């Protein structure tokens, strides 16, 4: 049970990449002058991306200087949120969802694969390619079990995994092959396996079921006038007055 601490070995310096610099400016510009520090989380995120997936101490200092805040304030944020990694990670950071739906659908098996292939969680594999950790719900329960893999190409979901497809995924990533994000079992997004089963009637979509409207609801002019008259008759303000009197 230990807190998250800065890595023991730190690089000497950090600088934003060109793209990161541009993105940082975009985020800082979102906040009024004097409130630049509101952009601390986006900037830390950009810095993490630019630093190979983890936040070094120099990176935090650069962020602090950029936003005109004390380094301790940046450290507070960086240590609070677990999405900021304080230790170096492998080329691909695998976040296995271990929350109930994924667990019921076999995330424990994925973890077993990770342990076998990579080692203990939050360690870097021997080849430097992978780090894995268990995380809470990533919001893709319908495609459980799933993992999120963060690397230079971004953060992508790999869903509907089992031991075999997880192994294959790791093989492909290790070999540097392209992998397709999304379901790994030929599902299309979160459709049922084998394609959609309902709402397949084409007439639902080609307009053949549509019936012409007699009048358009809430249309101006033509439709309004008769309606107004009807309302006037029904409202009967005259009736309301005697009612009030009777009440008293």
């Amino acid at each position, binding site marked *: *049970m*230990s807190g*998250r601490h*800065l890595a023991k070995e730190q690089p000497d310096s950090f600088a934003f990449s060109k793209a990161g610099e541009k993105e940082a400016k975009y985020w800082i510009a979102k906040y009024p002058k004097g409130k630049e520090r509101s952009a601390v989380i986006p900037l830390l995120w950009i810095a993490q991306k630019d630093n190979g997936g983890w936040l070094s101490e120099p990176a935090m200092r650069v962020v602090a200087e950029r936003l005109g805040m004390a380094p301790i304030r940046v*450290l*507070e944020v960086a*240590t609070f949120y677990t999405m900021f990694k304080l230790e170096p990670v492998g080329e691909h950071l695998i976040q296995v969802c271990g929350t109930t739906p994924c667990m019921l659908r076999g995330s424990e098996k994925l973890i077993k694969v990770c342990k076998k292939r990579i080692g203990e969680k939050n360690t870097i594999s021997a080849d430097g390619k992978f780090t894995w950790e268990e995380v809470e719900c990533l919001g893709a329960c319908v495609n459980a079990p799933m993992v999120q893999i963060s690397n230079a190409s971004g953060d992508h979901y790999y869903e509907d995994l089992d031991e075999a497809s997880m192994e294959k995924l790791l093989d492909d990533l290790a070999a540097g092959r392209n992998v397709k994000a999304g379901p790994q079992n030929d599902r299309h997004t979160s459709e049922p396996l084998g394609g959609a089963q309902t709402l397949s009637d084409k007439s639902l979509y080609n307009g053949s079921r549509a019936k012409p409207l007699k009048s358009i609801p809430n249309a101006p002019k033509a439709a309004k006038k008769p309606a107004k008259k009807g309302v006037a008759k029904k409202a009967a303000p005259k009736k309301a007055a005697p009612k009030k009197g009777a009440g008293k």
Partner: protein
Amino acid sequence: MSELRKVNVDGKEIEVPGHYTLMQACEEAGAEIPRFCYHERLSVAGNCRMCLVEWVGAPKPMASCAMSVNDLRPNRDGSPANIRTDSAVVKKAREGVMEFLLINHPLDCPICDQGGECDLQDQAMGYGRGHTRFEEPKRAVDEKNMGPLVKTNMTRCIQCTRCVRFITEVAGVEELGLVNRGENAEITTYLQANLTSELSGNVIDLCPVGALTSRPYAFNARPWELAKTESVDVMDAVGSNIRVDARGAEVMRILPRNHDDVNEEWISDKTRFVWDGLKRQRLDKPYVRENGMLREASWGEALGKVAERLKGDPERIAAIAGDLCDMESMKALKDLLGSLGVTSMDCRVDGAAIGGQGREGYIFNSRIAGIDEADAILLIGTNPRLEASIINARIRGAWLHGEAEIGVIGEAADLTYPYEHLGTGPADIAAFAGKRGGFAAKFKKAKRPMIIVGMGALARPDGAQVLRYAGELAAKCKVVREDWNGFNVLHTAAARVGGLDIGFIPSNGGKDVAGILKAASAGEMDTVYLLGADEIDMSGLGKAFVIYQGSHGDAGAHRADVILPGAAYTEKDALYTNTEGRMQDGFRAVFPKGKAREDWAIIRALSDVVERTLPYDDLDALRATIRRPDAAAFDPAKLGKAGKVTAKPFVSPITDYYMTNPIARASATMAACAANAVGIAQAAE
């Protein structure tokens, strides 16, 4: 002010301003609310949950520190909301909170320095359960480094974040933070660097548990074995109210005492940690120089030697009173020398060109509490962070909570608040009057403008002219008004205002400090009486016979021909007047060391030997002769002297904050701080 609102606390209906918190309302009604994180001089955090009260009808108890009376809705029948602080719900809530707080708190009270004065101990006794149900392992946290003053034992921390808020808000250096989260939350400085604030020691008082304790005081004493004496500090001219805790003949520690108009409840690190200097380098018996060597002597012999010298030509005798002198000794020495016809005496060791022109010309007229009201503050030749840390915190408070803007003419130092830098030298004072826009515009329109002139501006050869410049600026900008006097002089020495009030300055052609030194090195001065004066250039005393009366073996004693051992500020009942002209009583906490005596008594005894017996036999009789100078019409434009100024920029007289007086120089703690500060400065370069 907001409207009054009725609220019913424990069946007692009271009326309080709507902006009051429930805690304030409950206290108004006489109910006691336990708390850990809440502190009335810091922002509200609301994270300890100890102050829970019941709002009858609400589903859950409320944190009373964070909820205002305005937020309460009256009962359905229109009667004021009912708050209960003594109900079963509240009792259970407090027990629950206390149980959670104690889950990860080690039960190491027997080896904890906070034991006996610990909020957690007291409140666990008062509001907790009698036993624990927790059987799991407790968490442990690594100790953190915070420098030579603050000792940490972070396992005891309950994450109230008072220290973080103090360092950020009052001290103004964002160095402490709460890192990690949940069970792993820890208080630390960035990369465990040392705290750099001059007010860092206050976190020790603020810490409700034993997580932050005093490093120099560690394992030295228990609070119940200490004799507590309320006194006044002399490390700077603020006159912070302190409590001196002593055991036997030893001062064990110094704590702040609340005084809203002076130091609130903070004291600077020098004030707090200087006490080990009271045990080292002490002058505990009279010495007489013989064949170039100092040898012990009896009081009779030493006083006889001094008396012999004082009977000489009064034109060739001079006296200088140092920075830590009490008013009584200065008054006694002035009376004695006056009766001998000596006119060369001065208390302005640093050569500041003040005094002799009315009292308002040398005191902090708007008072320290007046800073809170000021809306534009111009600092001239002063770095209040080093010269009077407490006042600097006050200025920061005015900037943070009020609308005060600050301008600086002088060194562009880090003052912990933003300011407009308007120049560095005397010429910039004159130029300021013609400036438009920015701070100058704000200053001229201000309702409560304030000028603070420091010793960096006055303690220089052209100090009198600089004072005239500042006075003229004050007159031009109408800083002195019928209901507001914003012309302030910030002193660096505790004795200075007292000395000026007494009139310990040259009269009838007498010489000032510079004159005395010049005359002495030219051989025109036979005898120089140093009353605790160590901050002068001793090589300038030439071949003069030097009498040193003081408490510490510092520069003065080194040069002296006769040493009369006096008492340090914790060892005498004495009066001190702070920079705002507030006369305060200091009390004796321990007796003077060895054969040393209270300073006024030494001079009284000397007067007998000189056969000019002073007309007072006890302290009260002496004090009865001390009168504050009569008030005179004050015209700032006539202060100082007209004349040319040099272009030399203002430099703060304090270069090493931790080493400004003999007591601090004798303190190992201060030496460690000074070494640490040097290290930090070097690292920054």
